[in-house]
């Protein structure tokens, strides 16, 4: 008995759910529509479990062709679902964690939409959430690079929509465009990565004449290795975009503008791991290009350490987690880069548990403070005043928290479990998966091992700092004193995730190698070797983690932070801490490296080409308009001030260039005719004199 034919429902159930919510969501009310969304996602989980059961009996890959799609010449891409141990692992994680987050969100969004003053947005949220599940399922279940790409773009779109969910607000709740700018930044950084993936796909198709995984892998051996190297490196650009690796990671911290369940689901547990999945899926290609593997591993390890340093200096509870996510993704990418595909996937799964837990927990903390600050439950009247920007109450600032373990004990307990799992203390899930990566790294590449170990040390430190700042000491604000525990609908998913964070290590417990054996069916014995437990590595990392936690305690625990006091780390580290707080000025660096020169180039075009050359002849109206164009250019660097991110600046630069070009479009017929004539004369000159 197998259920493989049911697999299309992992996509269609969420689609059904979102259609239902689009059509009658408003009439169903909050409960109804969140229930619909939950059932859709839960149904997908059930189907995934059925796939798992079927696969346990018949572990070889099954391809379920659903529909003809593209079929021209050499290119034949049907819409086919690929059910193998690798894709089913991802399906289970996506739908399982996704469903828990649906439950949590049903409670969380109830409050969030009211604080943001737009209760009608509730249904919209669940529509997007289901859409995301559907797209992510397409991504993991596709049987070809093209289907994977369709899902890849789909989740990118959902990410864009959800980051910009409160698109007319700033993250602090005042009206403004910061959230929607964050969404744009994410979208554009991802497009840069997508270009890489597209190029890889085109190269694959050109060289191997197919995009289906099996065919591609079968033909890969016969291709010149330098082409494979190019393909895998292009793919790495895509991975860096989607999985927030150096140098394209800048969008992920800003993506925290989305509602917290989104941060948990998309920007921690599932979507951002798509890059890891892509590399694992393309294992046969990467194994043919050792140079690319090393590059991937080093990029991952550097990202892991780099992001971990930044996390140390953040005060925003979600920003710490965001940089931690980038860092942990670095671990996974490094692992798959080293060829330790199983370790990477293992960490992917456990990380999905404890990072989702941490994000949801932070959401619970934020909500607890928010509800204490201005209560709106049930009979209380609704708040309409808009907080002013700047000195507004910021429920995400760890400096106003403290002592929360007494008022919100449930959240505290689960959060502690998540933090310890992330810190890598035995016997929690994170310990096993991280250790497996470190062990593999030690064998394969000592540099990567050193980088990752340092990152692991920092991880334990910043998590210790965070837990101590948030839950220990004395409350540093009124809201922290009065914080309200979240309702059961939110805490239950937390408890389930906490359980998974404790027990997750069993999935690939040393000696049992459950996941290794499971994935071996797909990856083959060559890529799915069992890593033996290495006591030295385990002891080193555990001791380092304990040391880091002790260090955090001496700084933040022994003498708890007072309200409005400076961070003790600032005194010790001095300007280094400022650098950490400012995220190593990477956004500013991009501004300096790419955006400013781009604008200067545009200004050069405007100044030399447009101004001196063109305007020497231009007398009246053109001068006035050109002057305005130049003013735009001059104003831009000043006006933009500190340029926020690659994306916005690029867009502004292109717009400036465009408006200087459009000066040519004067509206005068004779100028137009002159342009035509110019085109003719230069075309003829080329043909007569040069060809």
């Amino acid at each position, binding site marked *: 008995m197998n259920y493989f034919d049911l697999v299309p429902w992992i996509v269609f159930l969420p689609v059904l759910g979102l259609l239902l919510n689009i059509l009658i969501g408003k009439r169903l009310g909050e409960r109804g529509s969140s229930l619909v969304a939950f059932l859709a996602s839960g149904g997908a989980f059930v189907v995934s479990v059925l796939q798992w059961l079927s696969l346990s009996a018949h572990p070889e890959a099954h391809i379920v062709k659903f529909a003809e799609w593209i079929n021209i010449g050499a290119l034949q891409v049907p819409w086919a679902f690929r059910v193998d141990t690798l894709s089913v692992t991802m399906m289970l994680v996506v739908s399982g964690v996704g469903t828990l987050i649906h439950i949590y969100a049903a409670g969380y969004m109830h409050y969030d939409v009211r604080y943001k003053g737009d209760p009608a947005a509730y249904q919209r949220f669940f529509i997007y959430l289901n859409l995301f599940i559907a797209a992510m399922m397409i991504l993991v279940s596709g049987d070809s690079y093209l289907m994977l790409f369709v899902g890849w773009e789909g989740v990118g779109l959902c990410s864009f929509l959800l980051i910009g969910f409160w698109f007319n607000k700033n993250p602090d709740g005042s009206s403004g465009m910061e959230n929607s700018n964050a969404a744009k930044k994410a979208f554009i950084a991802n497009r840069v990565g997508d270009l890489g993936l597209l190029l890889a796909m085109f190269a694959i198709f050109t060289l191997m004449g197919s995009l289906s995984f099996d065919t591609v892998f079968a033909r890969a051996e016969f291709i010149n290795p330098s082409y494979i190297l190019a393909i895998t490196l292009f793919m790495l650009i895509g991975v860096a975009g989607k999985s927030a690796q150096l140098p394209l990671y800048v969008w992920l911290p800003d993506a925290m503008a989305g509602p917290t369940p989104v941060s948990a689901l998309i920007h921690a547990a599932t979507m951002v791991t798509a890059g890891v999945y892509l590399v694992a899926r393309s294992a046969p290609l990467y194994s043919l290009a050792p140079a690319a593997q090393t590059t991937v591993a080093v990029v991952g390890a550097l990202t892991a350490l780099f992001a971990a340093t930044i996390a140390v200096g953040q005060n925003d509870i979600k920003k710490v987690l965001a940089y931690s996510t980038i860092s942990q993704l670095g671990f996974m990418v490094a692992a798959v880069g080293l060829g330790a595909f199983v370790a990477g996937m293992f960490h992917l799964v456990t990380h999905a548990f404890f990072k989702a837990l941490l994000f949801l927990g932070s959401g619970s903390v934020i909500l607890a403070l928010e509800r204490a600050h201005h209560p709106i439950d049930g009979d209380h009247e609704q708040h309409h005043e808009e907080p002013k920007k700047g000195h507004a109450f910021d429920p995400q600032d760890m400096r106003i928290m403290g002592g929360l373990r007494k008022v919100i004990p449930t959240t505290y307990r689960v959060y502690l479990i998540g933090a310890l799992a992330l810190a890598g203390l035995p016997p929690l899930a994170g310990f096993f998966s991280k250790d497996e990566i470190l062990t593999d790294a030690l064998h394969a590449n000592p540099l990567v091992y050193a980088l990752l170990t340092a990152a692991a040390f920092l991880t334990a430190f910043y998590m210790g700092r965070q837990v101590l700042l948030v839950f220990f000491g004395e409350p540093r604000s009124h809201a922290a004193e009065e914080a309200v525990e979240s309702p059961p609908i939110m805490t239950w998913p937390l408890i389930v995730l906490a359980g998974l964070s404790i027990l997750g290590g069993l999935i690939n417990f040393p000696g049992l190698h459950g996941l290794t054996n499971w994935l071996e069916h797909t990856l083959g014995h060559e890529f799915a070797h069992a890593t033996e437990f290495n006591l030295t590595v385990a002891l080193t990392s555990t001791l380092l983690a304990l040391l880091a936690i002790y260090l955090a305690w001496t700084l933040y625990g022994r003498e708890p932070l007072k309200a409005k006091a400076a961070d003790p780390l600032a005194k010790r580290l001095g300007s280094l801490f400022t650098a950490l707080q400012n995220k190593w000025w990477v956004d500013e660096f991009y501004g300096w490296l790419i955006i400013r020169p781009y604008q200067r180039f545009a200004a050069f075009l405007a100044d030399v080409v447009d101004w001196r050359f063109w305007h020497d002849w231009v007398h009246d109206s053109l001068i006035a308009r050109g002057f305005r164009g130049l003013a735009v250019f001059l104003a831009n660097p000043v006006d933009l001030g500190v340029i926020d991110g690659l994306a916005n600046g690029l867009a502004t630069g292109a717009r400036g260039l465009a408006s200087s070009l459009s000066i040519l*479009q*004067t*509206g005068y017929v*004779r100028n137009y*005719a*002159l342009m035509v004539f110019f085109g003719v004369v230069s075309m003829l000159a080329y043909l007569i004199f040069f060809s």
Partner: protein
Amino acid sequence: MVPVSYYLALAAILFALGALGVLIRRNAIIIFMSIELMLNAANLLFVAFARSFESLDGQIYVFFVIAVAAAEVAVGLALIVTIFRTKHSIDIDELSSMKG
């Protein structure tokens, strides 16, 4: 016998002058006349080539071009008259309300 190439050169000069007229005059009617000059230059080219091949096809083309020119003139002058009725001017530099 005058070489056909001389006719080609003459046609090219007339064509260039017509194009120049389009570019430097502001009176819509004169621009239009300049375009007629360009068409006429092409006609000269056709007839000259027809003569060198001793085939009649080139002459037939001229016939068609003249017919097309007539149609264009009718519509073009109608457009100019219409514009004149609204703007009381046929200065094409005043027709620049749309740009960018």
